[in-house]
C-alpha cells in the first residue's frame, strides 16, 4: 500500500464521518424528514472495500448506505440533497436516505429491505460475467441480513456460477435492536462461506488496512473468474439503529467501550507512527472534508423541494 492510498483511505473515512455527523445535526434541526440510519464508526469498511473498485464496478447497499455511496464516488452534494429530500438529490427526492442511486459511478442502489440488495448484486455479477467483462459487484449488508434467506439463496447461486461478487457483511453487532449473539448461530459469520465452497473470511472491520487487504484478495479472485468471496467485517454500530433510537437494548458502557476502537483514530495513529501524516496534515484533511460537507449542506438547503406532482413522473396509470 503506497502512501497516497493510505491517505486516500483516511480521507474517505473522514468524508463519510463528517457527512454523517452533519446529517445527524440536520435531522435534529428538522432538515432531514426521516430518521436516517447513520454509519458512524463503520467507515473503514466502505473505504477499504471501495478503494479496490474501479468506476465501472458496481455496489448495492443497505438502509445504512450513505458511506458506501460516498466511498464509491457519489458527489457529496447529491447525497446530502437527496437525504434532505431536495429535487437536486441523486434521485430527485423520490428515493431518499434509504434509496440512493448513481449508476454512472456504480452505485446501483441502496435498498430499505434487509437482505434485499444481496440478490440484486448477484444479478449484477451475472450480467458482468455473461457480458464477458472483468467488472465486479459488491453487496454490502449487515449481520441481520446474514440470517435472511436472500443471503443463502444468493451465495449458493453465486458460488455455483462463479460470479464476480464480493459479499461484504458488516457485522455491527445489532440487527435493529437484537444483538448478534441473540440472533446468529455462529460467532463469526465469515465461516458461512465454507457452506458454499467459497472463501469466507472474518476481519476487524475497524482496521481499514485489514478490510482493504481482504477486499483486494476477493476482487482479484473475482476478476480472475474464480468466483465470489464472503467477507465479514466485525465492527460496532456507534449510533442507534436510527437517529432518535433510545438504544435501551444495550448499555452506555458498551457503547463507550466501542468508541475507543474508532477506525479513524486507529488509522490516524498508524499513519502518524509511520510518518505518513502529521497533526497538521490530518487537520488539513479534516477541514477539507468539513468544508465539502458544509458546502453540500448549503447546496441542499438552497435547493428546491420537488413539486408535488413530480411524484407521478415515471409512473403509468397513476
Amino acid at each position, binding site marked *: 500500500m503506497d502512501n497516497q492510498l493510505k491517505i486516500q483511505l483516511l480521507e474517505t473515512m473522514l468524508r463519510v464521518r463528517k457527512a454523517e455527523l452533519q446529517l445527524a445535526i440536520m435531522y435534529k434541526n428538522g432538515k432531514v424528514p426521516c430518521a436516517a440510519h447513520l454509519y458512524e464508526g463503520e467507515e473503514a469498511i466502505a473505504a477499504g472495500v471501495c478503494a479496490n473498485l474501479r468506476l465501472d464496478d458496481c455496489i448495492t447497499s443497505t438502509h445504512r448506505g450513505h458511506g458506501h455511496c460516498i466511498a464509491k464516488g457519489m458527489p457529496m452534494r447529491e447525497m446530502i440533497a437527496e437525504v434532505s429530500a431536495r429535487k437536486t438529490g441523486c434521485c430527485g427526492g423520490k428515493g431518499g436516505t434509504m434509496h440512493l442511486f448513481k449508476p454512472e459511478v456504480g452505485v446501483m442502489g441502496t435498498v430499505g429491505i434487509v437482505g434485499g440488495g444481496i440478490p*440484486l448484486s448477484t444479478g449484477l*455479477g*451475472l450480467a458482468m460475467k455473461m457480458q464477458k467483462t472483468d467488472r465486479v459487484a459488491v453487496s454490502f449488508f449487515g449481520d441481520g441480513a446474514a440470517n435472511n434467506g436472500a443471503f443463502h439463496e444468493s451465495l*449458493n447461486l453465486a458460488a455455483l456460477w462463479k460470479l464476480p461478487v464480493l459479499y461484504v457483511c458488516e457485522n455491527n453487532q445489532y440487527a435493529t435492536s437484537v444483538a448478534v449473539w441473540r440472533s446468529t448461530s455462529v460467532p463469526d459469520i465469515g465461516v458461512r462461506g465454507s457452506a458454499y465452497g467459497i472463501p469466507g473470511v472474518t476481519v476487524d472491520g475497524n482496521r481499514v488496512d485489514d478490510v482493504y487487504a481482504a477486499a483486494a484478495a476477493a476482487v482479484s479472485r473475482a476478476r480472475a473468474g474464480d468466483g465470489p468471496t464472503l467477507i465479514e467485517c466485525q465492527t460496532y454500530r456507534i449510533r442507534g439503529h436510527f437517529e432518535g433510537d433510545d438504544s435501551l437494548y444495550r448499555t452506555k458502557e458498551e457503547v463507550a467501550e466501542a468508541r475507543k476502537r474508532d477506525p479513524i483514530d486507529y488509522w490516524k495513529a498508524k499513519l502518524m507512527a509511520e510518518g505518513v501524516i502529521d497533526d497538521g496534515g490530518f487537520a488539513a484533511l479534516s477541514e477539507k472534508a468539513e468544508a465539502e460537507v458544509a458546502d453540500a449542506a448549503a447546496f441542499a438547503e438552497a435547493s428546491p423541494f420537488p413539486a408535488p406532482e413530480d411524484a407521478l*413522473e415515471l409512473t403509468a*396509470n*397513476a
Partner: protein
Amino acid sequence: MGRRIRFVEALREGMRQEMERDASVFVLGEGVGPHGSCFKQTEGFCAQFGEDRSRDTPISELAIAGTAAGAALLGMRPIADLMWIDFSMLAMDQICNQAAKLRYISNGQVKVPVVYRMTTGKSKSNAAHHSGSFYSWFINTPGLKVVVPSTPYDAKGLIISAIRDDGPVVYLEHKLLLNVRGEVPEDPYEIPFGVADVKREGTDLTIIATGAMVGFSLAAADALAKENVSVEVVDPRTLMPYDGEAILASVRKTGRLLVVDEGFRYCGFGSEIVAFVAENAMDALRLPPKQLTTMHTTIPFSPPMEDYVFPNPERVAAAVRAMLTA
C-alpha cells in the same frame, strides 16, 4: 387459413425469436435448461442457445427473481421462470419491492427490463399450492405490468412485447390453455399493452374475462346464442395497464356487465373493473354489474369440491341468465 400451433409452442417461438434477435435476452429458472421447463416452454433452447442463456437454477425463487432484476440493471433482458404463480410468493420482495420500484426510486436512472413468467390458474386437482390466480397482487404494485394471454396468437405477441418492454412484466400462462391450438403467424409481432381484444361481438351483455375465463365465456356465449341472447366477450389481455376505453365502449353498447374473474372477488381484478365502469359509465348500465369469481376459499383437492369453487362455462351462462331475468 394460417398455421395453427399450440399456446405453449407460440410462447416458445416468441421467446426463441427474441433470443435470436437480441443476445441480451436469456431465460433462467428451475428446469429451463436441458429439461426444457415444466411444460416444455423452453424445449430446445439449451441445444440452440447453450446453458449460459438457458440457465437452470436451484429452487431459489427469491434469488431467481432478484438475480434477474440485478442482471437487468446492467442491460440484460432476463426471462425469469418462477414455474407456478403460487411460488412467486417466495420471491415477492424482489418482484414487488425491488424490480417494481428501482426505476422510480432511482428517478429513472436505471431500468429493469425483466419478464417474470409463471403458470397460473386451475388445472386438475392441483389443490391449495398449485392453483392460484394471484394476479391482483401484482396489479396492486405500482411499477409492474401484468399480462394474461388467452390464445396462442396473444401468447406470442404479448411475450415479445413483454421482452422488449423496459420495465418488469409479470407474464401469466394459464395451465388449461397451454395445449390449446390457434392461428399464429411465423414472423415476430408485438401486441401493445393496454389494448383489449373483442373475442366475440354481441349486443345484450358484456363479459370481461381473462385467461381461461375467456374460453369459458365464449362457450357460454355459444350456449346463450341458442337462447337468442347476444353476448360480447372482451379480453383485456393485459390487466395492468388495462384498456378502459374498450371496456366502456362495450358496456355503453350492451348496457350490461358481467366480469368473469378466476381470482378472488375482494379487491380483485373483477372488482376493479366493476368500480371503473361504475365510476365512468353508470349512466349506461341498465342493470347492476355483476362478478363471477372463484369462491373465497382455499382451493380444495377433491374434484367435486374443486369444480364447485371455480367458474365454468355453465356457471357463466347461468350468471348471464340470472342477470337478464332479474
